[in-house]
């Protein structure tokens, strides 16, 4: 593997594709990067943060109230009822799991593909993954109705001598999503260790030194440690990659393994994974466009980073749109009456409004990213990222609700409407998500400091060979042990 842009320090005038401009702009030194990122965890709490935190934690309080109300009264307080037994809770579950996937894609898959631009955004994206998965895990947990026996989903020996039903996709889901959460947490924490060391070494107060020191595990940046660390990080990336693809596949099995028209399709796993990455990148975009501005990180998270993310949104959005059209084709081609009706009903039936919101948000709007000007326009990408997430929420709504509300027997057809508890629970889950994300921004380095330093040209030991800046000039040259990297 080559070291990055050894020759190219000056800001580049190229158009960004033929020759890559530097990943990190502003000619920052190692120390400036440390300062730039660490400062935000060390300064006094800004008023703006407190205000945002107030709003977010109010949302969290609403969520807690709604959960208490739900536990007290039972799930009849939601709009779910026969025939639509899976209402908003499952829509929200799939929505939040999907959001999480972009974090793992950025941290693991782009790492394996040596996409060095990921270093500026992976920490925040992984944090987003964790918080989105926490929101996701909440919904099936409270959806089971008898939440006090939720442990029945785990293989815990009990007095009834009963075990979980391992042949059920719903149980696969328990294992898939909780494994995903644990692996993402490990991956995130391992990435954090060197940066926690940085915070420890900069700490002024004894208490802060103790807390950061505890979590930094005594990190000293020793090369003997880096060696095992990098290997473990690579392996984690290699493990997280198939995991992230499997998680949303397993989520899609919840639907695809059933015999409900509109659910029983083999296209679901890849289509769900593409949709997950699509919505997740949109959420990363929404969060980072704000965070980079508020925290002055424009040199670390550059327009180039945002543009690359927009390209991924364009690609995955097109894949999702292609899947929508394929579903229609297969429904027609199958010659199964129920299947054909399910899709006709989706696009022209009582939920056609939801279907066309989904279609326009997911298929139409990202297509504007073919135009370079729009791809690099921050207001445009911000608005599009929000539109995409609205569209992706509606996608899950369309899949869940329209398939259930009219199945084989017209006598049991129905129309689903959410209740105020449904609405406030969804609002509250955003409160939970933003509360956690704001805590992350306040207390944890939001950019991977050590990794960003590593993509600077100065990080390459051979940068000093020819530049003759006085350090290596009078010494014999090292014999260039360029590693396989």
């Amino acid at each position: 593997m080559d070291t990055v842009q050894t020759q190219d320090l000056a800001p580049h005038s190229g158009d960004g594709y033929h020759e890559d401009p530097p990943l990190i702009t502003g000619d920052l030194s190692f120390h400036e990067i440390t300062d730039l990122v660490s400062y935000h965890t060390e300064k006094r709490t800004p008023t703006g943060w407190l205000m945002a935190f107030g709003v977010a934690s109010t949302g969290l309080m609403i969520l807690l109230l709604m959960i208490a109300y739900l536990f007290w009264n039972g799930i009849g307080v939601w709009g779910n009822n026969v025939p639509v037994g899976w209402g908003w809770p499952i829509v929200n579950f799939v929505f939040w799991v999907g959001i999480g996937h972009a974090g793992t894609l950025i941290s693991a898959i782009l790492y394996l593909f040596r996409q060095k631009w990921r270093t500026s955004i992976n920490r925040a994206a992984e944090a987003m993954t964790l918080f989105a998965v926490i929101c996701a895990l909440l919904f099936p947990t409270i959806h089971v109705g008898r939440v006090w026996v939720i442990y029945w989903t785990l293989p815990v020996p009990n007095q009834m001598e009963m075990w979980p039903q391992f042949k059920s996709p719903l149980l696969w889901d328990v294992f898939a999503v909780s494994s995903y959460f644990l692996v993402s947490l490990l991956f995130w924490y391992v990435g954090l260790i060197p940066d926690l060391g940085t915070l420890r070494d900069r700490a002024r107060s004894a208490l802060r030194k103790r807390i950061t020191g505890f979590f930094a595990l005594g990190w000293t940046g020793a090369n003997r440690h880096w060696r095992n660390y990098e290997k473990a990080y690579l392996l984690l990336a290699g493990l997280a990659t198939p995991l992230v693809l499997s998680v949303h596949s397993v989520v899609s099995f919840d639907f695809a393994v059933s015999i409900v028209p509109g659910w029983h399709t083999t296209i679901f796993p890849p289509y769900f994974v593409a949709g997950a990455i699509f919505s997740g990148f949109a959420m990363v975009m929404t969060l980072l466009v704000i965070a980079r501005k508020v925290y002055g990180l424009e040199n670390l998270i550059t327009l180039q980073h945002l543009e690359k993310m927009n390209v991924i949104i364009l690609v995955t959005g097109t894949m999702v749109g292609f899947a929508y059209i394929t579903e229609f084709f297969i429904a027609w081609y199958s010659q199964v009456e129920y299947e054909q009706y399910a899709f006709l009903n989706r696009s022209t039936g009582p939920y056609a409004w939801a279907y066309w919101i989904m279609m326009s948000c997911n298929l139409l709007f990202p297509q504007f990213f073919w135009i370079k000007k729009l791809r690099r326009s921050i207001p445009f990408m911000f608005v599009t990222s929000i539109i995409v997430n609205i569209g992706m929420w509606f996608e899950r709504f369309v899949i869940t609700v329209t398939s259930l509300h009219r199945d084989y027997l017209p006598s049991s057809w129905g129309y689903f409407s959410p209740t105020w508890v449904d609405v406030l629970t969804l609002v509250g889950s955003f409160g939970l998500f933003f509360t956690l994300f704001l805590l992350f921004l306040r207390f944890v380095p939001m950019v991977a400091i050590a990794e960003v330093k590593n993509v600077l040209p100065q990080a390459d030991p051979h940068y000093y060979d020819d530049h003759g800046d006085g350090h290596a000039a009078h010494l014999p040259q090292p014999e260039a042990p360029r590693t396989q990297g």
Partner: protein
Amino acid sequence: MPNPLLQRLKATMGIYESRADKVYGLLAEYADPGALLHAAQEVRKAGYKHFDTHSPFPIHGMDRAMGLGQSKVGYITLAGGALGLLTATWLQWWTSAVDYPINISGKPFFAFEPSVPIMFELTVLFSAIAAVAGMLALNGLPRPYNPLFYSRRFARVTDNAFFLHVAASDAAFDMGQTRQLLEDLGALGIEVIEDREYSDI
């Protein structure tokens, strides 16, 4: 007298014994990754074994310069993955075919096909836990006490400073000669690290 085998194991983790006079080692600072890489090569050539470089980020080529082989984290991860696969297979087979078999629509009590998702998930989960636990174990972490932390200068190791530490436990360690070698390699500053055996935070 400490167990020499244990000492050797700890040395692979970068944990060294201090001498009777409390000297833990010499810590030299270098200007940049290039100088550090060169210094590490020369220190190794001079026959030292108990030395390590400390930098804010991993430096490409340093493993080779220091003469370190492949990391063993991979084997530990593989073992973890195998354990996860066995656990998942055993768990699903034993609970549904041995301990409490239930006949559902005449389906087999145990079959591989529906067991694949959980086999996969637990393989990945166990591998990931093994990778992280193995990495920490091989690195001797967590290690809250480290004599290097007594050095004020060393606090910059996670910011922008590059250090080479030669431990006093090395057979070739000699206060005068080692210091001279580190100086000749262009050290910006050299410090004697003592193991004071108290915590100063």
